[in-house]
């Protein structure tokens, strides 16, 4: 994937297939500590121990349409290239949490990319799921919840391109305020 936002979009598909009703995306970036981490966690079905132990093997997948699963191995590879690693915790009936780290300033770290676009796509395609997004930097923190947006606006879904464009703008403006674009440029 060209950007980490696309990796996040990919990993979230696992949570959606696991029938999660709440999916949380936590991103942390610190110039001071030269560190970046991303956590995608859900309250879906979880994985049995046997599957969990080999889930980063590209030849292991729960899908029946093909015999390889590249999402997690790709993200693990990208993390390793950038001085980090990937770990997964999962408990059947409770959920799964995928945690990945990077050296922020590593030359091989992929840029974050269009995370606001990823969030609006996820919200529009899965209006029944509550997406929680938390982004923390040395300068500040930004959070939002898709359920909170629905409740505040009194809507059932995000089937409106104007609203999605406005939400994307809201996310980007708030991320700029906490220095996310500056960090991407560095």
């Amino acid at each position, binding site marked *: *994937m060209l950007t980490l936002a*696309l990796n996040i*979009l*990919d990993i979230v*598909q696992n949570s959606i*297939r696991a029938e999660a009703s709440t999916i949380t995306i936590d991103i942390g970036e610190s110039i001071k500590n030269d560190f970046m981490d991303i956590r995608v966690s859900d309250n879906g079905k979880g994985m049995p121990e046997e599957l969990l132990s080999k889930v980063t093997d590209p030849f292991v997948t729960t*899908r029946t*349409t*093909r015999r390889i*699963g*590249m*999402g997690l191995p*790709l993200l693990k590879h990208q993390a390793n290239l950038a001085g980090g690693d990937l770990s997964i915790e999962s408990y059947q009936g409770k959920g799964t949490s995928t945690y990945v780290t990077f050296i922020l300033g590593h030359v091989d770290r992929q840029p974050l990319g*269009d995370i606001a*676009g*990823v969030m609006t*796509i996820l919200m*529009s*395609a*899965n209006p029944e799921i509550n997406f929680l997004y938390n982004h923390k930097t040395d300068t500040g923190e930004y959070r939002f919840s898709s359920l*909170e*947006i629905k409740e*505040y*606006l009194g*809507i*059932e879904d995000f*089937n*409106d*391109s*104007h*609203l*999605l*464009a*406005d*939400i994307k*703008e*809201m996310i980007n*403006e*708030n991320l700029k*305020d906490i220095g996310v674009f500056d960090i991407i440029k560095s």
Partner: protein
Amino acid sequence: MSQIKSLADLKKKREEIKTGLDVRIKSIDPENHVQVKVAMATCGIASGAKPIMEFFVEQLDRRNIPGVVTQTGCMGYCFAEPTVEIKLPGKDPVVFGYVDLKKADLIIEKYIKEGELIDGIIPVNYETIDSKE
């Protein structure tokens, strides 16, 4: 135009265009609307499915075509990603492969608006229990 930074800003902007929205929201009925499903597995995302999905969401709205755009997982056509399944009301779904922005535009103008098939359709290669009976 002022920036949108808070939920209050979102609400204010929405209220400015509310009349048109109410008409559209009340009339959403998936069975009588175009259903667009964009495959969003790893191969699809890596091949460019995200901008395709964004294009369909924006353009169906802009061209006033009643439709629902959703994502789906791997349909097994990894060799032809990005792939998009279009279901017109009363018709069987059709899967298009190698969809880029230009082809997405053609799908809307030719297939969705006029029912005219275009190149790049992936033929049906499975049977369901229902179709066997």
